[in-house]
């Protein structure tokens, strides 16, 4: 019998501590409410409304995320060196901004008194306090993640395949559509689900930019925060609901992801 080496012990110790740190709060949340309370939430018209707004806004955000994000990701994966680094920093910016700053920045851009405020008012559009604001907030926060992660998928496509397609007379569009896209298809589906899951959990940017009105801009995470103001128990139940939805989506994303990327 060989004694485990100190380094192995260190690795195991650190991993276990980290595991406990991550799992304990999640476990506490799951234990905070009974399954019957959880099901009871699904009969609450207010919760159903919030669930609907959450689903609707995330689904409405998907087409623009794909339409803008997919070409951007493909383009990014062809960039090299300084240019790519610069573009990646730009994409990382929305990821590290505190949600409150994101919300304020969106107001300063699209609000009534924002940079585009006059232009939008001339068109008769009012973005804040509308579902459009929820969708834009999701777009702003989620698209950069989507582009970063999809670009990595495109990086994995064998360049020789695309070169061969071009040599055989395919146009760049055809080589993208017929060669690169099919290779990354499964990974992209996984990223789409990740984007959905991220949109579901958004809070700070939405409450600032879109406001909090049940049935119009109140998503599940906003409803959770409002419920917490009077009834912490209901907030725990809603938190568990959100956790279970995220867990489901993340597992789906994992299952779809191709093996090479999954490991």
């Amino acid at each position, binding site marked *: 019998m060989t004694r485990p080496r100190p380094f192995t012990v260190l690795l195991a110790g650190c991993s276990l501590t980290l595991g406990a740190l991550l799992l304990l709060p999640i476990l506490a949340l799951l234990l905070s409410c009974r399954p019957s309370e959880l099901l009871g939430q699904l009969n609450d018209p207010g919760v159903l409304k919030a669930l609907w707004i959450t689903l609707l806004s995330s689904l409405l955000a998907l087409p623009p995320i794909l339409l803008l994000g997919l070409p951007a990701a493909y383009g990014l994966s062809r960039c090299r060196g300084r240019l790519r680094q610069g573009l990646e920093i730009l994409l990382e910016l929305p990821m590290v901004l505190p949600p409150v700053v994101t919300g304020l920045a969106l107001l300063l851009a699209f609000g009534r008194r924002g940079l585009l405020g006059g232009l939008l008012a001339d068109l008769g559009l009012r973005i*804040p306090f509308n579902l459009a604001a929820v969708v834009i907030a999701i777009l702003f926060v989620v698209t950069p993640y989507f582009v970063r992660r999809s670009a990595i998928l495109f990086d994995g496509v064998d360049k020789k395949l695309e070169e061969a397609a071009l040599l055989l007379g395919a146009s760049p569009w055809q080589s993208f559509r017929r060669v690169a896209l099919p290779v990354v298809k499964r990974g992209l589906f996984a990223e789409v689900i990740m984007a959905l899951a991220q949109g579901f959990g958004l809070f700070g940017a939405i409450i600032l930019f879109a406001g909090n009105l049940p049935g119009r*801009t109140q998503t599940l995470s906003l409803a959770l925060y409002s419920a917490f103001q009077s009834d912490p128990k209901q907030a725990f139940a809603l938190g568990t609901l959100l956790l279970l939805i995220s867990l489901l989506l993340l597992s789906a994303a994992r299952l779809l992801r191709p093996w090479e990327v999954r490991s």
Partner: protein
Amino acid sequence: MVLIRALLVPLLLLTLLRPAGATELSIFAASSLTEALRDLAHNYEASHAGTRVLLNFAGSQTLATQIEQGAPADLFISANPSVMERLQRRDLVDAPRPLLSNQLVLAVRSELAQEITTYQDIARPGLLLVLGNPEVPVGSYTRQLLSGLAADADCGAALVKQIEENVVSEENQVKAILTKLLLGEADAGIVYRSDLTTDASRDLLIIPLPPQHLPQISYPMARIRGGNLKTEAFVSYLYTEQARLVFASYGLQQEGGR
């Protein structure tokens, strides 16, 4: 062993951050008291060397939940008596006493001075009105006010319904209502009188609300069970004439009862 030592160093540094021998009072207070209590804490620290007043501001419900979950508080000042009662039932606080009273006001962007001259004008179609969430004190007081107005011949249920249709957001904190007004995203909002004393809010107009419908708004204060006993001196300070003047300058009225 090296690892344990490495972990001990930051822990040691953390404890060093606390000045030795200093008394720390941890005050949890409703966010509508932010400016007034900051001033008072500053004055108190200046006259009581070795005492640090740590202030934690949030919605009263948030603070109550934090206290229930064992957050280290010595004193709790709530914008809402029912939240205080909740803590009292759980035996987490000593007997509360009234500290302050406040009032609801209708605040309007100053560029609407021509259009909005009475509170009834906020029923105008298309106006962007931001209120408190009914679950938080400012929102529940606002709902009391609105139901009073609905029964009033000067206003009426139909007008109140139109006012409610103008609501574009229900905020969980009174400061969030103010933010939306100051950013110019909302036209009008119902907040506390004490919220309109900062420099930033100078360009908001205050429209009078009928006094007979204004709900009683009182701020109870209570010591947390097991909290620092030196809190009592700070509590006494909050009832002094000096404190009364500071509170008054922020639109808050000190209550007499000790």
